[in-house]
């Protein structure tokens, strides 16, 4: 069964990108098309999402989630390219919509007109196409392609302002990601050579029945590890986080919002898809060496994820506390917050049954909260820049009296990161703690360490949020703050976006159910294989 709705988000984004290029001479038309395009994108995603996860599933009223596929050119899987929309993919797509819609509207207000006309809108929608393709594709080489489509515009958008510091940041960002692309190709080539296929469902099936297909799964573990490293680079996890602070600082605020909110999550998504769906049933013929337990591939990735999570939480947290401007704090905070997501994934990888499911739900909810809260904070930072002309703490101070709505939005975003109920961030923290608690009760290794790290990381979050708040928003209004003006439309937009953090937290039930469905979709690889239905060559 080929469902055209699966490809809709991708087509909308690509067409919008091309159209905005075509009307470059007419800036007003260009902006209108861009805004209409993002609206159409949202409609496409929501239509797709409601087909995959019916409303009944979200309200607990019954119904079942489906996995829709689209076989390009109608070639049967695994010979052509399959697009697959399951509960996990649509969860990530909806997450993207929640961020990109406000980010684009903000861009129209924020980016100077000349920049918008040159290429901004086309690049934005191309990036969105890359993101959508990455979430939807069921083919690992095709994933590489969409990564490239996503990265190429991001390189330019980082250097968009064109000064020395932006160029420097973009150079580092570009070089590290090109290295990533190179090793990704090595890994994909190796996987194709050892497995004889590129289709993810086919890979999962072959790994589960290695004997039947005459496959030796042993090399795939190492090759998969290389692929994993590339995904970790996209997600900015320690030790692949080096590009993050400079790139976020250099990029225009709405782009930093999309990069922190969405493109990072592409890396997280790819890790989940690879480890839990493709490698879901992958086992080795003999026990893993070096004290790693079991024969499952996850025996390697579990401990690795732990180390990376611990590194990220501490590096990000410690880095953020002492920074002296908003963007820098937010950028380092991103590294730390992604560490929490990885921590949940680590627990999911080492655990089994409930621990695994809850771990994945925790990772997804945490991703959602980080996407919304962090992009909100970057937009706030952009608004502060617009209003005051600086985001450096020594030039700020006293914003809360002068610009209460901006301050209030920052406060909500900040306490969402800290995990104050009933905001979305609380549930992220809650579920990470819950996973660790369940792992402790189940006697999983490292669980106590995970819990201790999560607590320490949460305390670091309080430390950097409270410092940033005190420095930028409390205190005597500085001279630039006194002179600041109110960019009304931006403030309204940011304020409305901030309310989303509250609304999704209070109305958390459907969010949880969506994440629950996504977590099951990620681990139930048989369903995925069945939906894609790769043919067997006789």
């Amino acid at each position, binding site marked *: 069964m080929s469902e055209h709705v699966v490809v809709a988000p991708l087509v909308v984004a690509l067409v919008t*990108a091309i159209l905005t290029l075509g009307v470059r001479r007419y800036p007003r038309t260009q902006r209108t098309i861009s805004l209409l395009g993002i609206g159409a994108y949202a409609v496409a995603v929501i239509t797709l999402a409601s087909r995959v996860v019916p409303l009944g599933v979200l309200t*607990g009223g019954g119904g079942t989630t489906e996995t829709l596929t689209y076989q390009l050119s109608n070639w049967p899987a695994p*010979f052509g*390219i399959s697009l697959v929309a399951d509960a996990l993919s649509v969860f990530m797509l909806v997450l993207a919509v929640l961020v990109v819609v406000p980010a684009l509207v903000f861009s129209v207000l924020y980016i*100077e007109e000349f*920049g918008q006309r040159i290429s901004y809108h086309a690049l934005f929608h*191309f990036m969105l196409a890359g993101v959508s*393709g990455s979430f939807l594709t069921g083919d690992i080489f*095709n994933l590489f*392609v969409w990564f490239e489509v996503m990265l*190429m515009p991001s390189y*330019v958008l980082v250097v968009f302002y*064109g*000064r020395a510091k932006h160029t420097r940041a973009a150079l580092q960002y570009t070089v*590290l990601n090109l290295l990533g692309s190179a090793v990704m190709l090595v*890994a994909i080539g*190796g996987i194709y050579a050892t497995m*004889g296929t590129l*289709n993810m469902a086919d890979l999962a099936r072959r790994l589960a029945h290695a004997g039947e297909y*005459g*496959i030796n799964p*042993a*090399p795939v*573990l*190492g*090759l998969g*590890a*290389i692929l*994993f*490293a590339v995904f970790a680079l996209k997600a900015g996890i320690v*030790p692949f986080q080096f*590009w993050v602070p400079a790139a976020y600082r250099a990029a225009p605020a709405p782009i930093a919002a999309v990069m922190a909110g969405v493109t990072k999550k592409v890396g997280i998504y790819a890790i989940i898809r690879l480890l839990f769906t493709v490698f879901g049933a992958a086992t*080795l013929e003999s026990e*893993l*060496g*070096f004290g790693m337990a079991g024969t499952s591939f996850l025996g390697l990735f579990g401990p690795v994820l732990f180390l990376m999570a611990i590194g990220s939480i501490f*590096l990000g947290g*410690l*880095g953020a506390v*002492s*920074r002296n401007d908003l963007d820098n704090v937010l950028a380092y905070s991103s590294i730390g917050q992604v560490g929490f997501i990885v921590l949940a994934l680590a627990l999911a990888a080492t655990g089994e049954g409930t621990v695994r499911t809850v771990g994945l739900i925790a990772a997804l909810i945490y991703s959602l909260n980080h996407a919304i809260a962090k992009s909100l904070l970057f937009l706030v930072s952009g608004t502060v*820049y617009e209003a005051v002309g600086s985001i450096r703490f020594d030039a700020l101070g006293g914003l809360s009296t002068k610009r209460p709505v901006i301050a209030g939005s920052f406060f909500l975003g900040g*306490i969402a990161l800290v*995990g*104050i*109920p*009933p905001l979305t961030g609380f549930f992220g923290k809650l579920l990470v*703690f*819950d996973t*660790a*608690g369940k792992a402790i*009760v189940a006697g999983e290794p490292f669980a106590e360490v995970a819990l201790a790290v999560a*607590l320490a990381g949460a305390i670091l979050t*309080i430390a950097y949020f409270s*410092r940033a708040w*005190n420095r930028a928003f*409390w*205190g005597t209004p500085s001279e630039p703050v006194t002179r600041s003006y109110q960019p009304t439309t931006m403030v309204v937009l940011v304020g409305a976006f901030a309310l989303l953090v509250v609304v999704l937290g209070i109305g958390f*039930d459907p969010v949880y159910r969506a994440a*629950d469905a996504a977590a099951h979709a990620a681990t139930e690889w048989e369903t995925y294989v069945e939906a894609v239905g790769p043919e067997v060559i006789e």
Partner: protein
Amino acid sequence: MQPSQGVLLAVLALPFLAAAVTPLLYRVVGERVAYFAAAVAAGAFALIASQFGTHGTVSLQWIPALDVSLALYVDGLSLLLGLIVSGVGVLIFTYSGAYMHDEPGKAKYYTTLLVFMGAMLGVAFAADLLALFVFWELTSVSSFILIGHYQDQDDSQYAARKAMFITVAGGLFMLVGFLLLYTVSGDVLGEATFRLVGTEGALIENAGAMQEGLRSAGLFVPVVVLIGIGAAAKSAQVPLHIWLPNAMEAPTPVSAFLHSATMVKAGVYLVGRFRPLLGTPEWELFFATLGLLTMTVAAILAVAADDIKELLAYSTASHLGLIIAGFGLQSVYGAETGAFHILNHALFKAALFLVAGIVAHEAGTRLLSELGGLWRALPITAAVAAIAALGMAGLPPFNGFYSKELLFEATYHAAEHAGGLWWLLPAVAVFGSIFTFLYSIRFLSLFAGEKPEAIEHVHSPPMAMLAPPVLLATLAGIVGLGGVSATAGIHLGPLEHFIERVVEAVGASEPHFGYHLPTSLTPAAGMSAITIVVGAVTYPFYGRIAAGVQRLIAIDPIRPNFYYDGLVSWLDRTTIVSGTVHTGRLRTYATWFFLAVAGLAIAGYSGAGVVFPAISSLAAEPAMVIVLAVAVVAALAVTRAPSHIAGVLTLSILGFMVAIFYILASAPDLALTQLVIETLVLVLFLLILDHLPEFYGEVDRIRALRDGAVSAVVGITVFLTVLVSTAATPGKPIAQYFIERAGVPAEHGSTLLDFGGGGNIVNVILVDFRAFDTMGEISVIAMAALSVITLIAMRERGETQ
């Protein structure tokens, strides 16, 4: 009788709704919004009072998927706290109306205070652990905002941040404790539940089974400690008490409301609430120690304080310690101590804070050393202070005396029971109480004697500021007189009955609560006598004692703030990440990337026990060997090239050798592509080389060695990867599908030709089977072109508008 759902929900909703309209209302009625808030509190008080005598749970689903509900439970304990919160709330809002007259940020102040009151009522009534936690953290956040009310003051910022740091972090520990309870309840009760109390499947109703389940999972003590940390952070127990004295930066009504009468009671409330669930010898040891330690340490610190609000802050921590110790002790006396002292403390301490506010407002200073003789100017205030401070001192017949007697009785009982080191409990209780007596009298002394000349004319406070403390002191006085009349046989029935219900709620079965003056020399009466006599004898040396304590706490490792200040200032300044790890050098970053990738790959290969094919199987034709050897030589030569031109030329030797390799490997299409790319790259390089600096820079030997080692590691990893990949022979590869349907030879049929429009496998795959990839890559190229335009057009434009 069941409580009414509508009423309880209204109690919770009322303050939040009022908070939502307060900013608007403030624009209309100005500071009179205080009386609106007071009316809201009064409404809540009336609604809660209407539930007096009911007992049970009402529940509203919140997150059914996680089985979380907004469950509200009414029993003695929740009623007590609810009435204190709303009742003191009425007085505080009234008092604020006058006190905040000249202060900034009134709209924010009243909004936050109302949110706080709603959250605090939520804490009192929530029966679901998650709902409880939600309200719990909301009180911390509103406390943060209120402590930072004078936001341009550094001290306020410091205090607010510290309070948030400690209370929110403590809350997280508590949350972990809750979650462990939740998980264990799944094993014990069949279905995991967050419901603490009030229904058949709730945790407290299955306390025995839960304790057993926790013990068998080895989690009993961790859960007690985690919940204990949460309670200790909120209720300012040693060593987490340090935020409370700083919190006095808040306006005085806030100090009276949050930081003495209500919010800090949340911790002791929690301990009381969990007492029936977790009350065991371990619990007793933990909380009795914590409570008595805090009671004593904080009382000593209070003696050293010169600022009256600081004195009251330490005193609050000390009295909270007393309540915690009471709830810790497992005898019925312990339960009675905690239950009764919550009420007594709220009455006398809120009154004293309001007195402190009046003094600061009217005399212009809060320093004990500058104050004195205020009784002439403030006679009513002095009377209030006398009743409240003597209650705080534990002097009969004032209210605090009775609950302190109960503590003495409880500690004596515990010591008599267990013997040994447990005798420390009554000893410490008496020791701490002596200091309590001392600072209480010292507080009172600011009304006595002659007024120092430095203090100018002291006005009498407005009615709105005077009435609330008078009311509180009157109530405290009535409670005290109740004990006197009870000695004569006339009991304050309703009060005793109410406290009895609280005692029941904290886990004592069939309690009979009554209080009166001691009529015989019981051990407790003896302990009280010792306290008062020693206190009175040592009072003349108050100055010396205070100076001694001040000297002691100035020593660094003992200084209360030593650890917090050290940690936070290190965090705020550390460049461990931005300086040491993130050096800004791409070389470092690339090294990390390469080594991490190589490490992961090697870990994967060796973990899986990959067997690498023998080198002998790599035999190749002589021509191939020569081509590859030239390529290797060229690669080495690139690293040693003396100029850009030489480097680029040598690099293209490598590229052309790869092209020849493709020809030898029968891949003419790849070879053509490679040749085109090599030629283009060479031309492009040569065109831009002119614009680059000629000098490469010196490479020192150590770095060269390190870089050499990194490249060797990367080279070996890629080599191994290629080796295992090319050696693999997977069965049924998808390539077979294409080969079997290719146009050549003819017997394969015409599938590719008919449906793919071509006979060349590679071409059909590129433009049909994998056309999607091709389209994506074309977009990338288009974007690359767009990037060039952007880079040129946006060059040096910066963020200007």
